């Protein structure tokens, strides 16, 4: 059995609920849970830690059913977005708090070790109210990690931090997590958290787990258009025009898009393309393995730090590509320019537009068969 096994979890708290959530994690897995606000992500965390008792379903941790176990017996740590540091304690006392309960030997050494690893050893005498957001978050992490929990849950731990602090904290967290081989479940809105930290991703929507899998799987093979949209892909509605030699040709408003995903001629499908999978060229580029060369007009350039988001119009179809600022300057791109968007057919995914309504994870097979078959 897996390290953590969640089976058919149902919780109804009125405004928030979970419906039949099931998934498994192995020891050392780092799962990011992504979903819109109010989708049930925090309830999932808080039910794992024991603050809510499920109406139905079971939670197994190391083969033990902990569904009705008291939170203090589960040995699962939690880190919140707003840190939840105890303001009447110093940083040292906050970190010491959990160790004291465990009557742990060598408390002082453990506290200094984790404080050094998270670069907060110079703050130990301070009160939490005098710390910056990033420092508070590292103290909260230290407090949870120092007791060596079986599992660590994090509820949007970086969302209150500025981008630079967020990047630094991510790096520190990754180091510490890897060192302790901690199993982590991390709720986030920031897809970069998933890319940098996670090996597994779960997408939750309206209380349903709509997709669960490896990072690669979820980001490159979104199973619904909602997921594709959520993970940043451009969606295009079209009709399957032909299917031969393992390539499906889809007519998207007159533009022929080729994909390696199977499809039946005449089917209405939704295609998903991730902006980072699109190459931009000012000249035709015939000697390439990529099968999609779409002649388009550059309608808008949005600079986002070191990258730029290009909006491309090909007939009535609009899609987006991401290139570096360096490439933008090298190609001397400007709005109105005619460019070729080059996409490998393997990077054009057929997603299931008819699965837009939330469905429990596990029933996707049926949906896929309808499209693929």
């Amino acid at each position, binding site marked *: 059995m897996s390290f953590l096994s969640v089976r058919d979890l149902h919780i109804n708290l009125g405004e928030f609920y979970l419906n039949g959530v099931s998934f498994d994690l192995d020891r050392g897995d780092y799962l990011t849970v992504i979903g819109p606000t109010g989708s049930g992500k925090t309830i999932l965390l808080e039910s794992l830690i024991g603050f809510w008792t499920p109406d139905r379903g079971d939670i197994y941790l190391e083969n033990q059913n902990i569904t009705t176990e008291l939170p203090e017996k589960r040995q699962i740590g939690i880190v919140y977005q707003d840190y939840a540091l105890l303001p009447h304690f110093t940083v040292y006392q906050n970190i010491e708090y959990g160790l004291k*309960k465990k009557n742990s030997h060598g408390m002082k050494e453990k506290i200094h070790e984790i404080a050094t690893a998270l670069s907060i050893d110079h703050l130990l005498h301070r009160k939490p109210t005098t710390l910056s957001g990033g420092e508070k978050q590292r103290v909260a992490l230290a407090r949870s990690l120092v007791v060596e929990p079986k599992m660590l849950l994090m509820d949007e731990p970086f969302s209150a931090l500025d981008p630079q602090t967020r990047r630094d904290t991510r790096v520190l967290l990754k180091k510490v997590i890897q060192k302790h081989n901690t199993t982590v479940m991390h709720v986030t809105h920031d897809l970069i958290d998933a890319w940098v930290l996670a090996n597994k991703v779960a997408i939750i929507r309206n209380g349903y787990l709509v997709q669960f899998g490896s990072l690669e799987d979820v980001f490159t093979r979104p199973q619904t258009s909602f997921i594709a949209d959520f993970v940043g892909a451009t969606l295009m509605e079209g009709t399957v025009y032909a299917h031969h030699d393992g390539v499906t040709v889809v007519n998207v408003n007159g533009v022929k898009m080729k994909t390696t995903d199977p499809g039946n001629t005449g089917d209405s499908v939704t295609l998903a393309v991730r902006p980072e999978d699109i190459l931009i060229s000012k000249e035709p580029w015939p000697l390439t393995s990529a099968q999609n060369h779409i002649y388009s007009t550059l309608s808008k350039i949005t600079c986002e730090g070191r990258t730029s988001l290009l909006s491309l119009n090909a007939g009535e179809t609009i899609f987006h590509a991401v290139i570096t600022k360096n490439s933008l300057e090298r190609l001397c791109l400007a709005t109105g320019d005619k460019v070729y968007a080059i996409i490998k057919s393997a990077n054009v995914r057929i997603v299931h537009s008819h699965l837009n309504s939330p469905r429990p994870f596990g029933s996707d097979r049926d949906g896929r068969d309808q499209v693929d078959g």
Partner: protein
Amino acid sequence: MREVAIKHRAMRINVFKVVLIFITSFITVLLVLAIAALFMVPDIKDVWESLKSDEMIYSLKLSLWTGFLSTVLVTIFSLPIGYSLSRFQFFGKGFIKTIIDLPVAFPELVLGLCLLLLFGNTFIGKIFDSLGFQFIFTKQGIVVAQFFTALPYASRIMKSTFDYVDPKMEFVSRSLGYSMFETFRNVSLPLARNGILAATVIAFARCIGTFGTVLILAGGTYMKTEVLPITLYLNISYGNMGMALTSGIVLMIVSFMAIYVFERTEAAL
């Protein structure tokens, strides 16, 4: 040019704001005058003589003693009431909240009457009687009357205080291995200390000032169940204004101190 500027500035005055500030100031002035009258009207010699009188010393001692005892009881009971109403969802919570708050809206005389009937000939009265507690026309009755009058005020403040304590801190404490009670002791209680102090101070002021409930349950007997509000009432009836005003001044000073401490602790919350 200058005239235009002045006109412009005059137009920016918000009439709504001015009216509200005027009403607030007017009522404040009236209150200040009323309070000042209490201090200005009596002769200082009369006040001093009244303060030294046996009746006043008895009344003051009894007020402080019963007030202290009822405040301790109110604090002990309002703490779990406030915490449970703030934290837990349970059957009948809304009903319980209404019932506990009810004495706030009750006239004190009616509350006193209810307690008089309860501790009179009912089986509850008999149970307490068999345990050696007699509340009707006794000093013990003063404590009970003050307790039931002050409890809803303290419970409300306690509930608001615990509402302000972030439940996530308690969640974290429990995830670190502490039980619900240990978490309450280590986290909730220290974080709520200012609110608990505020509730205690308000409860004390309310206890000291309880009149109607004490009068009905414990009676207003001279030098027996005579607390400060009863002293004021009895001496007004006799026409002894010096004693009446002195007890009023003492009650006012206690209230002032209570509100001052309450405001300070509320600001620190």
